[in-house]
């Protein structure tokens, strides 16, 4: 065994932070990490946000994003310490020996240039290949990655191909210069599960066929288990555990890794449906100025104190349904009954009582709160608006609500910027709860959160449901979340409800084609899962 391709020794990384109430100062975000990577192997870097995994991944290119600086340690690539050379040496390394696949290909492709020009740019500028050689290579990669029309797709602009296709193009961009190492930074996180599985399989095959080594960064252990040889678990800039993928998944030693592996262990007994509190009947809806419906004949019920999970991929109409129920988008046909009365179609004409009993929590807690208001003001607003509370009475109720979301009244005078992502979402839950609603619409409320934090939020929501007897309409694309929280499920596809019933009905066979595709696409924390699914699908399509 020779010298490893990548050798990282006591790597320290610092960043400049700009806290709202203090002077900018430097902090250390990675505190001395060591690892090595052999030629042709894949190392998975896993951890929650803030663990430093992207930062460590980018250090293999000698790059610090924003105010991030590589402050100490060594990064050896192909036998030389890249932190010792100057920027000119780093430029020779980037795009030639080490390349990068970003999370959002849609944002990482230049919208003003053709895909092919961007894919071959690094090879040509670095003088690795001539333009025609690189283009021929790119076309082969397009074909290998399963892109349609591989000979011509390069002449399109990024907005002319889909998100999943663009992510494959990004992989082609990274592989085209024939690098020794590719850093994949959450390459499938922004994709729908049904798209993710194909991209994942394409990436895995490309890694295997080209014999390139890879750092695969993700927060999803089930995904990394499919592509890696080794896994390094990171937490707050430090290594927690390192080992072969089999050991990390099946026999984790550290407590933190065990928590990551066993996440989504919530056990929720489904309740039987009763007289519904919300009845959505035959809703059709379209956006203004368009000529086609985005919702077709949608009908669902929600029982009081129970949860209906609406699941589907992006563009399936889940959030549009929420907009129709809240009256933000009046339907073109159909009606909505709520708590024994029929709701008016548009929000401005609804009574204050209708508004109070129907609350909403959003995906991005960050932007759903006014950054210049304190937590107390944010939660106090519905108390004033709906119940006319003032002064000490209001403050007492705010403290109670903060207690309910397990935060305590110490937060009452804090600003949103001082809170973590999970805490922000908790404040949003308290704000919805303050109105004493009968139904809360939760629109992807855990999608932006790390798995462990998301788990806490789901547990809290279930707890609150028991205590307050509130019903949830829970919109999500994540089937694990659905299993954890739902009493009944509606599967949406292209604006239609394709499957609807209690959780046990919807999740047991026989499945319709779409639900089958959706369920089988969710990565499982098992080695070889990806190959099995792909093989099964190939057999099925051969059988047809």
């Amino acid at each position, binding site marked *: 065994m020779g010298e490893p391709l990548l050798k990282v020794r006591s790597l320290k990384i610092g960043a400049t932070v700009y806290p709202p109430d203090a002077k900018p100062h430097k902090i250390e975000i990675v505190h001395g990490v060591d690892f090595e990577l052999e030629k042709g192997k894949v190392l998975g870097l896993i951890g929650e946000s803030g663990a430093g995994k992207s930062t460590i991944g980018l250090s293999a290119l000698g790059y610090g994003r924003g105010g991030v600086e590589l402050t100490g340690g060594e990064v050896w690539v192909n036998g030389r310490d890249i932190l010792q050379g100057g920027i000119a040496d780093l*430029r020779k390394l*980037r*795009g*030639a020996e080490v390349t990068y696949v*970003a999370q*959002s290909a849609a*944002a990482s492709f230049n919208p003003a240039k053709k895909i092919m020009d961007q894919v071959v740019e690094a090879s040509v500028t*670095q003088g690795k290949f001539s333009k025609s050689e690189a283009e021929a290579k790119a076309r082969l990669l397009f074909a290998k990655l399963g892109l349609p029309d591989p000979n011509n797709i390069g002449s399109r602009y990024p907005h002319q191909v889909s998100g999943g296709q663009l992510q494959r193009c990004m992989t082609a961009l990274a592989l085209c210069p024939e690098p020794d190492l590719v850093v994949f930074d959450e390459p499938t996180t922004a994709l729908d599960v049904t798209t993710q599985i194909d991209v994942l399989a394409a990436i895995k095959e490309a890694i295997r066929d080209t014999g390139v080594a890879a750092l695969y960064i993700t927060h999803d252990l089930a995904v990394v288990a499919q592509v890696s040889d080794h896994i390094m678990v990171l937490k707050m800039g430090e290594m927690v555990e390192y080992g072969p993928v089999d050991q990390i998944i099946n026999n984790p030693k550290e407590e933190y890794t065990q928590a990551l592996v066993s996440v989504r262990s919530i056990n929720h007994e489904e309740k039987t449906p009763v007289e519904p509190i919300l009845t959505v009947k035959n809703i059709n809806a379209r956006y203004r100025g368009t000529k086609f419906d985005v919702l077709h004949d949608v009908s669902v019920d929600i029982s009081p104190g129970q949860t209906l999970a609406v699941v589907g991929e992006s563009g399936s109409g889940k959030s549009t349904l929420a907009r129709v129920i809240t009256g933000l988008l009046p339907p073109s046909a159909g009606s909505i009954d709520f708590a024994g009365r029929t709701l008016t179609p548009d929000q401005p004409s609804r009574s204050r009582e209708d508004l109070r009993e129907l609350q909403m929590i959003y995906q991005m807690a960050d932007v759903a709160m006014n950054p210049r208001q304190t937590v107390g003001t944010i939660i106090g607003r519905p108390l004033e608006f709906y119940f006319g509370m003032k002064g000490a009475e209001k403050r007492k109720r705010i403290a109670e609500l903060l207690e309910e979301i397990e935060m305590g009244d110490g937060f009452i005078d804090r600003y949103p910027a001082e809170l973590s992502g999970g805490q922000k979402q908790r404040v949003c839950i308290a704000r919805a709860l303050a109105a004493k609603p009968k139904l809360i619409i939760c629109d992807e409320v855990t999608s932006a959160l790390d798995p462990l934090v998301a788990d806490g939020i789901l547990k809290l929501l279930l707890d609150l449901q028991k205590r307050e007897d509130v019903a949830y309409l829970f919109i999500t694309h994540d089937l694990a979340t659905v299993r954890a929280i739902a009493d009944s499920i509606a599967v949406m596809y292209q604006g239609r409800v394709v499957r609807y019933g209690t959780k046990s009905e919807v999740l047991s066979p026989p499945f319709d084609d779409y639900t089958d595709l959706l369920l089988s696409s969710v990565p499982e924390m098992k080695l070889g899962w990806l190959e099995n699914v792909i093989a099964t699908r190939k057999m099925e399509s051969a059988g047809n």
Partner: protein
Amino acid sequence: MHPILKLVSQRLALGLLLLIAASALIFIGTQILPGDVAQSILGQSATPEAIANLRKDLGLNEPALSRYFSWLGNALQGDLGTALTNGQDIATSMGKRLGNTLFLAFWAAVISVPLAIFLGLLAVRYKDRWPDKLISGVTLASISIPEFLIGYVLMYFVGVKLGWAPSVAMINDSMTLGAKLHAIALPVTVLTLVVLAHMMRMTRAAILNVMQSAYIETAELKGLSSFQVIARHAFPNAIAPIVNVVMLNLAYLVVGVVVVEVVFVYPGMGQYLVDHVAKRDVPVVQACGLVFAAVYILLNMVADIVSILANPRLRHPK
């Protein structure tokens, strides 16, 4: 129809509509000016009969609406009427003046636009370091000093003391291009200094805005040099705002050169307009207004169309 053709033809139609609206405003504006044209031509001592006769000759007794349409109709055919003061055909005498103004504006633009964009790129490349601060400081100073002052200062030092360029920018048809350029060297310099800052700062801001994008990081991670990243990846996405400010400044070079032309006694549109405003020569003022409006609208329309063409989503729909 290709969406781009549709958008461009919409812009063209809008531009035409705007020009007609501007012509109406110009006409109304000159009509509501106090005083009587016939009176001012003939002077205080004129007899009422003479004034009435002149009014009839000038067609001033016709209703305003019909006078507007006959004026607009003639203008569209290239007939801008005759000047009241000297009886000359406006289109002919203005044509030469306009040619001179465009000549001056053209050379000012040829120097200032590439220079501004280059300085903008340079300022981005060395952001917050001394080249950026120097460029910003100098251009900001040059836009802050009134153009007539820059003009006189240049005239004194470069024209009089050093004798490198003539202080009075007189040109005529018999001069060679080189001689003409030598003659207008000082006004071109002044105009360049005046328009540089605006364009350079907008270029800098637009590109810095684009530099935040994720695809800039992609470009950096390809091992491109800073200038390659800026020129190949940032600039193409910053064209729309840059073109808009460039066109505004080009319009200024044609429409706003009055002061500079007067300072250097340059025989352009500005001088012509100022002379005839002083003499209350309404048809000339109207004609100048119309030409200025047309230039302004045309350049802004070009900016709009270039912005549309620069957007790949519009050029290549799904």
